[in-house]
């Protein structure tokens, strides 16, 4: 019998730790559970070392993970600069369709 529990928040926190370990430019990671499909983990990663892209080019990238297992999910990441994060908060940039900052959980970079 299966004992594996799919805990998206725990998995999201693990991704946040791993990605920051690999990429020192990631200064904050936001996990967006609101309105997200059950098996999709949506992250916004704010990176102060990234080359700023055009706002209309902002598009999340997704990866299938653990396909065929009980923890199967899709990881979807939107990479943005701190300035773009400011503009998102001010409503000057729209989040991708269906994304919401309600109930967002953030993990800042630890020194």
């Amino acid at each position, binding site marked *: 019998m299966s004992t594996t529990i799919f805990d998206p928040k725990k998995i999201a926190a693990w991704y946040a730790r791993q*990605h920051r370990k690999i990429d020192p430019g990631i200064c904050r990671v936001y996990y967006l559970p609101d309105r997200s499909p059950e098996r999709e983990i949506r992250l916004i990663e704010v990176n102060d070392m990234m080359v700023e892209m055009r706002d209309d080019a902002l598009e999340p990238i997704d990866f299938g993970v653990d396909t065929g297992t009980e923890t199967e999910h899709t990881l979807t990441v939107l990479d943005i600069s701190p300035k773009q994060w400011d503009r998102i908060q001010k409503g000057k940039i729209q989040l991708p369709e269906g994304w919401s900052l309600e109930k967002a959980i953030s993990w800042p970079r630890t020194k």
Partner: protein
Amino acid sequence: MAKNKMNRSQELWWQQANSDFSIWSLLNANDAGPCHQLHYLQMLTEKISKAYFWRTGKPPRKSHVGFVDFLRSLGSRSLKKSERNRIAAIFGFKQHEHFESWMHNVTPLIHELERLAPALAGDGPNPEYPWPYLAPQHSPTTYPFHAWTALTSSTQGRSLIKFVETAVKRFAEYG
């Protein structure tokens, strides 16, 4: 909007790159092993580069190295500023200087990806065959490829994947 009409050679190389991209997308969506995903990424970057260099009507060199040259060519100073900015915009950059800065940062990762081709990997890590050849110690399917971690876990790596996708999907606009 198409900028240039592809010549027949470009069309053939682009078709194959596009097909490789479709397979990579399937592999990615199904969480296939990193070796298989890297294999397809390496192949399709080589093919889209070849498609680009066929623009002169002459065959590009038969080497696996090409994507860095392709990027450099796209960023060529010999192009007019308006054309450089147009190409940068296709790939989502605000202006050409941002594209150059991104290229500078991402080039080491591209070299790493290119060196995975068995012909360049020597007796080292590659996504296709166990190595070393004469006394195998590693299999690609269980090997933790640094390139894969860098591509999936860093902003820069993910931006490279998106760049490759745009390079294939919008080839007609800059090729």
